[in-house]
């Protein structure tokens, strides 16, 4: 084997080790789900909840939609990355209680690659909801 051939084989091996080594160290993705807060907001119509839910979901995730029309059930997904689909999602449920409403947050994330855990996602959403509700 010539010196050049040996060099080529070595470089090829370096490349393969780099490729397979990077895969071997990849942690398995796990589904993380969080039961976020549930709170009652007094003296507010459920339409205020809907508005804040949409705002919060669009601020933290994207493309918030209300399921089935005027249901108070809102859902949104994170932006898909180049290697995966959406790895974060959340639901906000608004339900009227006379002159008040109850709102619940539920979040899910695939960790890794999602930078946020489901709990962190729900905390962000709750904060964004409160900002929108003020």
């Amino acid at each position, binding site marked *: 084997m010539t010196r*050049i051939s040996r*060099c*080529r084989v070595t*470089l*090829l*091996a*370096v*490349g*393969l080790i*780099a*490729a*397979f080594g990077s*895969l071997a160290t990849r942690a*398995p*993705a*796990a*589904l*993380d*789900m969080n*039961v976020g807060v*549930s709170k009652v907001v007094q003296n507010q119509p459920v339409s205020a909840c809907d508005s804040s839910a949409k705002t919060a979901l669009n601020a933290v995730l994207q493309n918030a939609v209300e*399921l*089935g029309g005027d*249901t108070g*059930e*809102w*859902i949104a*997904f994170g932006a*898909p990355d180049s*290697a*995966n*689909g*959406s*790895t*974060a*999602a*959340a*639901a906000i*449920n608004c*339900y009227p*209680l006379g002159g008040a409403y*109850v709102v*619940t947050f*539920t979040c*899910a*994330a*695939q960790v890794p690659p999602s930078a946020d855990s489901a709990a962190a996602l729900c905390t962000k959403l709750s904060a964004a909801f409160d900002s929108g509700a003020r």
Partner: protein
Amino acid sequence: MNVKRGLWLIAVAIFLGLLSHTAAIASVDLSAGIRYVSDTGSLSDCSAKARAALETYLPGASESSPGSGEWFASGQNLLTGAPSSAATVRCYPLAKGYMVTFVCAVQLPTNPYGAYPLCLDIAHKFYGGAITPLAAMPTATPMPSGCATTNLVGTWVSDNDPKLSFTMELNGDLTDSEGVSGNWIIDGSTVTLTYYGNHTLKLSPDGKRLSGAGYNLTRKC
């Protein structure tokens, strides 16, 4: 060899390595929107049904805090060793009765079914409705054990010389008690041992004995 060609070779190798990793695109699938309002019943009634409905599909349902009426459970995927499905059932007391919501999440394609079918089954288990069987969660292929007649996996001891034993692996390898290696193949009840040459033996119907070509072996099982 110039630098450009060297870098090109590394790039080709990395590409080939990555190409061999055929991971499918993974994503989170979330289902919300199933809500049920009962005019009768208490929060504890709702909680009892929530727990039972969750545990029909996901093990170990737990309440986020005692008396909250917020229930959660997740399912472990044995192939990945990590959860790939989860669901929450949240009960909220009303002046008369209660309201309950169902939210489910799964990791696709790792999980064999989507979030909506899971949520629909949990909800129907809670308040009644058609139950559609979910695809079975994949399980790790168990190592064959016992005296299977489809393989020779296990430890075999020579009837003629009890000090001589063979360990046979699932991949067709065999190693004797002195460290000498060989291979085995089974076709029906006919076994070919490659061990100091090729030998044809017969496996007994109960999978416990191998005999032929001067060998008489008994499997420990």
